[in-house]
C-alpha cells in the first residue's frame, strides 16, 4: 500500500529545500543552491513516479475501480464538531496524475534554470522560491480537505507573486506581481465564500464526505442545499459558482485573466512552471476535484464552467494572433488552452462514457503541461540568445539554435493538433465530448483550433524563419546541456504522451472505459489546423507585407484585439476611478473630517465651556454672596414645590 512517510516526503523535500536555501542560501550554499534544489526535486519526482506506478498498476484499483485513498490525515484546526481543517493526502487518479505533472515539470525547470539563471545575484533565493512553489502546488493537488486546498491555493499565489517580482528593481515586474496577486485574491474571495456556503450545507470540510453528502439526493444535507436560497438559485448552486470564480481567477479565465499576460515579467522558466503547466491549471483541477457535485447535483453551475471556458478559449486565441512579445503570445495561448480544459469539464457528464469530457480535460491538462512547458523553455532559450522578447528582433534562428528549433517545432505541431502528436489526441477527445453535448461550444472549439494552429506557426516562422538573423556582437550558443536536456525530455512528452491510454486511468468515476476515435470525425479539426499552419506559412515564412495589409484592412478589429479588447483599461477605470475615488478617498476624508472632527470639536467645546465657567471664580465676595443667595432661594423654591406635591 502507500507509505505515509514516502508520500509526505514528496511535498516536504521541496519545502526543506525552500527553508534551507531561504535561510542559509546566500551565505552558506551560494552557487550550490541550484544543485540542492534540483537534488531535492529529483528525489521528489522519483517518489511521485513510483507512487503513480504503484497507484495505477499495483494497488490503486479494487474490483476494476480506482479508489480514493486518504493516506494521511492530521487534525489541524477544528471549528466545530465535524467541521475541521485536516491536513491530509488524498490519492485518486487526478491527484496522482498531478503529482507526476508537477514534479516532472518542476524538475525540468530546476535543471533548466541551472543554466538560465546562472550568475544571477539572487540565485539561491530563486531556487528557494521554486522550492516553495513546488511544495505549495504539491500540497494543493494532494489536498483531502477543501480548506486545505484553499490554504495551498493562497500559498501558490504568494509563490507566484514572489517569482513574478523576482526582478524586484524593475517597476514593471513589481506592478505585474501585485496585479497577479490582487486579481487572484479577488477571485479567492469567491472561493472563500463558496467554501463557507458548501461547508455550511454539508457540515464538513472533508472532500470525500462533502462530495458524498452533496451528491446523494436522499441525504438530509441535500434538502437544504438545493432549496432556493438567494436570487432564485439554491445555496448549492451559489456555493459551486463561487468556488468556480476562485478557480477561474487562478486559471486566468475571462474576465479574470488580466494578470496572466503581465505575469510574463517573471523569469521565463518560472512562466513555464507556474504560468503554463501547473498553477494556472489549478482551477481546472479544483472543478475536477468537485466534479461529482457539479455533474450530479448542479448541472447549472457546470453550464457556467462550459461557457466561461469556451469564451476564454476563443477570446484568448484571437488576441494571441496580434501580440508581438513571444511570451505574451504563449500566455494567451495558455489561457486559450485552459479554456479548452474548462469547457471540456463543462460539457461532461458523470460516469463511464458520459464522463468523456472529464477524462479529455485531464488528458489535455497532461499533454498541455508537456508542450506548453516546452514552448516556454524554448522561448527562454531564444530570449537568452537574442536578448529580447520581441518577435521583430528575431528571425532565421533555425541555423543558430538547431535543438531549440526542432523541439519548438514539435511543440507547435502538438498544440496545433497534428497527428500523431500529443495535442491531437487530447484535443480530439475534447471536441468529441463537446460535439455530443453542445454544438455551439463544439463550433467555437473547432474555430479556435484553427486559430491556434495559425498563431502558433506565426510565432514559429517569425522566430525561426522569416528574415535572416544578423548577430550583433557576441552570442553564446543555445545554452549548455542543462538547458537542452529538459527541452529534449519534454519534446518526447509532447510527441508521445498522446499514446497514454487515459480513459483506462483517469475517469470521472474511477471506472476505466474504452474510447474510439472516428477517423471521419478527425478530418475537420485536422484540416482546419493544417489550414491555419498553411496561412501562417504563406504570411510569415518569408518577409512580406501581406500580413500587414490584412491587419490594416481589419483595422478596427485588429487594433482592439491588439489592445486585448481594452479589458485592462476597464479594470483600471474600476480600480482607480471607482474604488479609490469613490470608496477609499471618501472613507479617509470622512474619518479625518467628520469622525475625528467630532472628537476634536468635543475637546475644544469642553475647553470653551470651562473658559466660560472660570469667570465665575472672580474672587469678589459680593458676587459670591449674590450667587449664594440666588442658589439658596432657588433650592428653597424647589423644596417647597416638591413638598407641596406630596
Amino acid at each position, binding site marked *: 500500500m502507500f507509505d505515509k512517510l514516502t508520500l509526505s516526503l514528496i511535498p516536504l523535500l521541496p519545502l526543506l529545500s525552500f527553508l534551507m536555501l531561504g535561510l542559509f542560501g546566500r551565505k552558506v550554499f551560494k552557487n550550490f543552491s541550484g544543485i540542492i534544489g534540483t537534488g531535492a526535486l529529483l528525489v521528489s519526482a522519483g517518489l511521485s513516479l513510483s507512487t503513480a506506478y504503484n497507484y495505477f498498476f499495483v494497488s490503486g484499483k479494487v474490483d476494476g475501480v480506482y479508489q480514493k485513498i486518504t493516506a494521511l490525515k492530521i487534525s*489541524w484546526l477544528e471549528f466545530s464538531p465535524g467541521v475541521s481543517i485536516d491536513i491530509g493526502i488524498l490519492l485518486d487518479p487526478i491527484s496522482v496524475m498531478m503529482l507526476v505533472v508537477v514534479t516532472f515539470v518542476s524538475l525540468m525547470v530546476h535543471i533548466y534554470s541551472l543554466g538560465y539563471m546562472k550568475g544571477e545575484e539572487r540565485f539561491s533565493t530563486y531556487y528557494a522560491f521554486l522550492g516553495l512553489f513546488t511544495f505549495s502546488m504539491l500540497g494543493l493537488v494532494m489536498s483531502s480537505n477543501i480548506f486545505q486546498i484553499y490554504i495551498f491555493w493562497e500559498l501558490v499565489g504568494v509563490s507566484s507573486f514572489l517569482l513574478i517580482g523576482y526582478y524586484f528593481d524593475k517597476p514593471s515586474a513589481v506592478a505585474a506581481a501585485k496585479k497577479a496577486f490582487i486579481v487572484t485574491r479577488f477571485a479567492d474571495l469567491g472561493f472563500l465564500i463558496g467554501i463557507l456556503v458548501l461547508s*455550511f450545507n454539508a457540515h464538513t470540510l472533508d472532500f470525500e464526505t462533502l462530495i458524498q453528502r452533496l451528491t446523494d439526493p436522499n441525504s438530509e444535507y441535500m434538502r437544504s442545499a438545493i432549496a432556493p436560497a438567494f436570487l432564485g438559485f439554491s445555496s448549492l448552486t451559489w456555493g459551486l459558482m463561487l468556488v468556480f470564480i476562485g478557480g477561474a481567477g487562478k486559471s486566468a479565465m475571462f474576465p479574470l485573466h488580466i494578470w496572466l499576460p503581465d505575469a510574463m515579467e517573471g523569469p521565463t522558466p518560472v512562466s513555464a512552471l507556474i504560468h503554463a503547466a501547473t498553477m494556472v491549471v489549478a482551477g481546472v483541477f479544483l472543478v475536477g476535484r468537485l466534479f461529482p457535485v457539479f455533474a450530479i447535483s448542479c448541472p447549472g453551475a457546470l453550464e457556467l464552467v462550459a461557457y466561461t471556458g469556451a469564451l476564454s478559449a476563443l477570446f484568448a486565441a484571437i488576441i494571441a494572433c496580434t501580440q508581438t512579445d513571444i511570451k505574451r503570445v504563449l500566455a494567451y495561448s495558455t489561457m486559450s488552452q485552459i479554456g479548452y480544459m474548462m469547457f471540456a469539464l463543462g460539457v461532461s457528464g458523470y460516469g463511464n462514457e458520459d464522463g468523456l469530457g472529464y477524462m479529455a480535460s485531464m488528458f489535455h491538462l497532461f499533454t498541455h503541461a508537456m508542450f506548453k512547458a516546452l514552448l516556454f523553455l524554448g522561448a527562454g532559450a531564444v530570449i537568452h540568445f537574442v536578448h529580447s522578447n520581441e518577435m521583430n528582433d528575431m528571425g532565421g534562428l533555425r541555423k543558430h539554435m538547431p535543438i531549440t528549433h526542432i523541439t519548438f517545432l514539435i511543440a507547435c505541431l502538438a498544440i496545433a493538433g497534428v497527428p500523431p502528436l500529443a495535442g491531437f489526441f487530447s484535443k480530439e477527445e475534447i471536441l468529441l465530448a463537446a460535439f455530443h453535448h453542445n454544438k455551439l461550444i463544439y463550433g467555437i472549439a473547432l474555430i479556435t483550433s484553427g486559430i491556434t494552429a495559425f498563431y502558433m506557426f506565426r510565432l514559429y516562422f517569425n522566430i525561426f524563419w522569416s528574415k535572416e538573423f544578423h548577430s550583433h556582437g557576441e552570442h553564446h550558443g543555445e545554452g549548455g546541456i542543462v538547458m537542452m536536456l529538459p527541452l529534449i525530455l519534454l519534446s518526447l512528452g509532447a510527441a508521445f504522451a498522446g499514446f497514454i491510454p487515459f480513459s483506462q486511468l483517469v475517469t470521472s468515476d474511477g471506472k476505466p472505459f474504452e474510447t474510439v476515435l472516428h477517423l471521419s470525425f478527425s478530418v475537420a479539426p485536422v484540416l482546419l489546423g493544417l489550414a491555419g499552419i498553411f496561412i501562417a506559412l504563406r504570411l510569415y515564412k518569408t518577409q512580406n507585407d501581406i500580413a500587414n495589409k490584412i491587419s490594416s484592412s481589419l483595422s478596427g478589429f485588429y487594433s482592439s484585439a491588439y489592445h486585448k479588447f481594452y479589458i485592462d483599461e476597464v479594470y483600471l477605470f474600476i480600480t482607480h476611478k471607482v474604488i479609490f475615488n469613490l470608496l*477609499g478617498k471618501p472613507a479617509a476624508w470622512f474619518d479625518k473630517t467628520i469622525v475625528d472632527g467630532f472628537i476634536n470639536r468635543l475637546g475644544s467645546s469642553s475647553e470653551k465651556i470651562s473658559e466660560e465657567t472660570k469667570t465665575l471664580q472672580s474672587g469678589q465676595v459680593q458676587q459670591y454672596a449674590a450667587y449664594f443667595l440666588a442658589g439658596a432661594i432657588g433650592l428653597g423654591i424647589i423644596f417647597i414645590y416638591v413638598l407641596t406635591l406630596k
Partner: protein
Amino acid sequence: MNLSLLILIPLVAAIIVLLSRNAQQVKWISLLASVAQLGLSLFLLSAFMGERANGNVSQMLFEQRYSWFAPLNIEYYIGVDGISISMILLTAFVVLAGVLVSWNVEKMTKEFYFLLLLLSLGAYGFFISLDLFTLFFFLEIAVIPKYLLIGIWGSGNKEYSANKLALMLMGGSALVLVGLFAIYFMSGIHSFDMVKLSQVHIAIEVQKIFFPMLFVGFGVFTAIFPFHTWVPDGHSSAPTAGSMFLAGISMKLGGYGCMRVATYLMPEAAKEYAPIIVILAAIAILYGAFATMMQKDLKYINAYSSVSHCGFVLLGIGMLTKTSIEGAVMQMVSHGLMTALFFAVIGMIYERTHTRKVEELGGLLKIMPFVCSVLFIVGLCSLGLPGFSGFVAEMTVFMGSWQNPEMFYRVATIAACMSIVVTAVYILRAVGKTAMGPITNQHFLELKDAAWNERLAAIILVLGIVAIGIAPFWLSDLVSPGAELIMSRIPTVIIN
C-alpha cells in the same frame, strides 16, 4: 504556580530600575525581567495544560484571593483560564520585543523603561484579575504610562496625540466604571467577584442600559467605530515600543473586557445588541481597510489597518457563536504579535531613513535584506497568508460567523470577507513600494541592516506568528473551553 509572580516581577524590576544608576543597568534589568516573564508565561501555559490534562475542569485555575477593601467587598482575586493565558503569552512576547527594540533610547532611559515595565504590569494584572475592581485598577495603571510615553518620547504632533489618546481612553474607562458599579449594585449580591457574578442573573432592564456603556467603554480601547480616531494619531506619534505596546497589548485590554466582562456578565443584552455590534464591526473592518488604502505614512497605514483588524475581534464577539468567539481571541493574539512586529519594522526603517512616507522609500530590499524580509513576513501575515497567524484567526472568525444562518449576519460576514482583497491592495502597495522597485535615495545605500537587538526582537515575534500559523490547534484548544463558557450564558432566544 503562583500567579502573583506575574505582577511581582515587573513591579520589582520597575523599582530596581528607578533605583539604578546608569542606563546600561536599566536596560539589562528590564531585559532580564521580560525574559523571566516570558519564561514564566510559558511555564504557566504548560502548567495549565498539565492541570487540564489531569482532568481539572474548574472554571479558573491557580486562583488566589485576599480581601483588599472589606467594606465594599473588594478583593484581590486572581485566576486564569485559556483565554487569559493566551493574552498573557501575547503580552510577554510583545514586552520582550519592545524592550529589545528600545535598546537605543537615549533620552531619559530610566524613566522610559520604568514606564514600559509599569505598562506591562498593568496589562498582566488586568488579564489575571477576577475581581472587577482590581481589573479596573490595573486597566488604569496601563493607561497613564501611555500618555507619558507619547508626550515625552514621541514625535510629530505629540502633545495633541497624547492628550487625545489619554482623554479618549479615560472617557472609555469612565463608562466602564459606571458599568462596573451598575453590576455591583444591581446584581443583588454586592460583589465584584466575576465568578460569583456569572452565577446570578442581572435584570434585563439593567443589562440593556449598562451593557452598551461597558461595551463601548472597553470598545474605545479596541478602536470601536466611531471611537477609533485616537489610534492613528496615537500610534504615529508614539515611540516604536510605545506603538508596539499600544497596538499589541493595550488594544487587547478592550477586546478582552468586551468579551470577559460585558458579554459574559450581561449575556441577554449581548444577544439583544449583537446586530449593532456586528454592524459597527463590519464598518470598522471595511471602512478601516479603505481608509488605510489612502494613507501615505507607514505608521498611519498600520494604525488604520489595526482598526480594520480589530474589527474582526468585535465581529467575532458580536456573532455570538463559540467558533466566532474563539476566532476573536485568536485574532487578538495574532493581531497583537503581528502589529507589534509591524511597528518594530517601521521603527527600524524610520530610524535609518528618517522617513515613513511610502513615496520617499523604495528598493530597500537590496540594502537591508533582513529588515525587508521581516517587512514581507509581517505584510503577508497581515493580508492573511496561510502559515501565519492572521489567516488562522480570520478564517476562524469567518467560519464562526457563517454559522449564523440569518441573512443579516450573512451579509455582514461577506462584507467582512471582502476586506481580504482590500488588505492585499494596501499591504502590497506599502510593502511593494518600500522594499521593491528602484532605490529612491542614494543616501539609502549607506544604511546598515538590522542590529542584534532588532534581529532578536523580530525573530521572537516571527516565531510567535509562525507557531500559531503552522500549528493553530494548540491555541484553539486552549481558548475553546473559555469561549464555550461565554457561549453557555448566551440565551438561545431573547426573553423580553
